[in-house]
């Protein structure tokens, strides 16, 4: 399985795909299915009972903050030949995910749900998990950081009279550092500041 590496200029899509690949490469995909949204439409369209236990990640909130002061340009990308600059802006993104598990009697029931929760704890909880995700998603230009993973309570739901064993109320908060892509053309650089030698300071 190919692991998607984090790219700060495509921070959202590489984060989603990076998380999906990271989980799928650490679970048995014949037993578990990873979806990056609340799987209600999937549940409507799926032939029940579920044959695989579903692990879902749904983005609930994504506050972002500027990095640095002023215009927040982190790289000027100065071109001495054309005497242009093509600045790139950096931002911090906190991505808050709701994490859920959906198991049915056919997919392993409560045992499958408990195992999935334990697997998730190993993948996102603690310092070792932080390092594993960092290693998995580090493409040399940033990586995905785990800020928090906790919560989760068990509930029973039904779809078409089929029992579903769900985990609800579990949260994963990630931090990534995004960067705006370079524009097609840069703007003129200020090469030199000309000062009139005749200027005097009055007063």
């Amino acid at each position, binding site marked *: 399985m190919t692991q998607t590496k984090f790219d700060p200029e495509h921070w959202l899509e590489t984060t989603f795909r990076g998380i999906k690949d990271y989980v799928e490469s650490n679970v048995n995909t014949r037993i578990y299915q990873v979806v990056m949204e609340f799987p209600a439409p999937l549940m409507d369209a799926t*032939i029940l009972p579920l044959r695989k236990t579903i692990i879902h990640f*749904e983005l*609930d909130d994504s506050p972002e903050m500027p990095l640095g002061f002023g215009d927040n340009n982190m790289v000027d990308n100065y071109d001495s030949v054309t005497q242009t600059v093509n600045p790139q802006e950096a931002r911090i993104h906190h991505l808050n995910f*709701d994490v859920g598990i959906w198991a049915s009697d056919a997919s392993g029931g409560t045992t499958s749900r408990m195992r999935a929760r334990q697997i998730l704890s190993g993948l996102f909880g603690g310092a070792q998990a932080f390092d594993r995700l960092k290693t998995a998603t580090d493409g040399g230009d940033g990586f995905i950081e785990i800020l928090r993973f906790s919560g989760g309570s068990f*509930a029973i739901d039904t779809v*078409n009279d089929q029992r579903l064993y769900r985990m609800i*109320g579990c*949260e994963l*908060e990630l931090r990534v550092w995004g960067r705006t892509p370079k524009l097609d053309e840069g703007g003129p650089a200020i090469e030199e500041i000309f000062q009139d030698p005749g200027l005097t300071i009055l007063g």
Partner: protein
Amino acid sequence: MAKFVPYQSRKAFLEPTAETFDGIEEAIRWAEVEVPRELRFQMNRLVFHMAILNQGIARKMSFGPHEPSGGPGVHHQYLGHRFIGSSSGEVRREAQYKTTNTAWKIPVRRITQAYYLGWKVRSLGPAVWILYNDSREAYFIEFGIHTSLRRVRRPVRKLSLRKTMEIMLRTSAYHRIWVDIYANPKYHHQGMGFHQHVSGAGAAVTGNLRGAYVGFTGPMVFGQNQRS
């Protein structure tokens, strides 16, 4: 059309603006230095105002279009079902429903208004307040549980608490607050700070607290100051 009422409490309160929190913070600092016995009252005011701030945000997210005619049979009218075959020979039955465009969104639309009016605050003790929703549908809305095939999560409780913390971040009282909402809610009595607990709808049958609720307590340092 009902008038939007963001804050509701039997206890008198000031509108929870940034200036209100800054003023309470000033009072806490004054009490810490001048009148330590006042500290517990000022801490209680801080926590109480945080609870009603969260209440206002949760109610705003619950104050969608008013559709009193959108009750069962209308907002989700069962039209029938269709059969879909597959190459494996299995035949799937898919129900067909009629819904309106205002359904399943945030702000949550109001049919009986029970969910919107259900966000309430009450005190559990000195500097311990909870925001809860005693409507039956709160649990289902929060976690996307529904008897029909259409199930949509609308995490009003979670998002309103996050917005509360964002607003508190811009006040001078922020350093007194920390969030413990991500702890396992089953053990919510073991931590201090913010608490969050969600009870199942089954609790409604027994008459206990039901729906989704969020708790607020004063910082632990408050108790330590009292002992020293």
